[in-house]
């Protein structure tokens, strides 16, 4: 494993995460119509990426680990896309 991130970086990441938490709550009080959901999800993805990159330190790990994580999300996406393709198009005649 390459050298571990410095402790300053951890504190900075934590601050960023708490900032994003405040941001997602703040944005929720603004009426963006359909974009409220996308905004909330984008912020959550950003928080998740921060945690994976810094706290879980995936950058220092072998590409095999990236593939393992990617596979998990890839098959989750398959489940969502094909299932929702049924729910969304069921009303079409």
């Amino acid at each position: 494993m390459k050298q571990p991130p410095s402790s300053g970086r951890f504190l900075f990441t934590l601050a960023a995460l708490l900032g994003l938490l405040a941001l997602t709550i703040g944005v929720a009080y603004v009426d963006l119509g359909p974009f409220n959901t996308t905004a909330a999800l984008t912020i959550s993805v950003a928080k998740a990426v921060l945690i994976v990159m810094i706290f879980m330190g995936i950058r220092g790990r072998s590409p095999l680990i990236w593939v393992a994580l990617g596979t998990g999300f890839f098959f989750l996406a398959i489940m969502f896309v094909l299932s929702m393709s049924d729910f969304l198009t069921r009303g079409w005649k």
Partner: protein
Amino acid sequence: MSDPAIAHAAQFDDATQQREAATFGMWVFLATEILFFGGMFLGYAAYRRAYPAAFAAASRHTLLAFGATNTAVLLISSAMMAFAVRAAREKRRAALAWRLFATAALGLLFLGIKGFEYAREFSEHLLPGASFHFDPPYTNQAEMFFYLYFLMTGVHAIHVTIGVVLIAIFGSRAWHTDAFARNDTAVDLLGLYWHFVDIVWVFLFPLIYLVERHS
């Protein structure tokens, strides 16, 4: 950097292979957890698309203050766990021990807040089933929302409880023995698990508490 002093199990050639195998195994386990929670998120997505208005109304009944505090608590405990993993790698036993205890304490705090929240909702008859009560327009679909809410936060709480118990055990082992001085892989893996549990909550929080807060 295979340290000859670190003992490794018979089936491995050296300690590096053992650590890489254990770490890879943990990430594959996290992939299974992604799909395990994925099934519930699919149920949530299907019904939020089908009943947007009901989900919005029901979401307003959730206690945002509790949810936000809990998210902060879990994020801080995740950071604390990252510090603990660093302490383990630097072989600083005392720092490792009290950081693990701090993480476990934050985890307990999360569970406590969750417990209060459940009690409040239980008293407001929001638990799905015979006693469920919600103002007329969205009775049925609100019950669906709260079923998903209790299901997903319940399964997540079980994972947090398992995490807290393990962190406490690791903390006491770090305090009393030098097990982790010789081999810190286990602490790293527990950290991965704890960060994963935090990420699940990071996605759960907006989907439950922030469906539609603007007036």
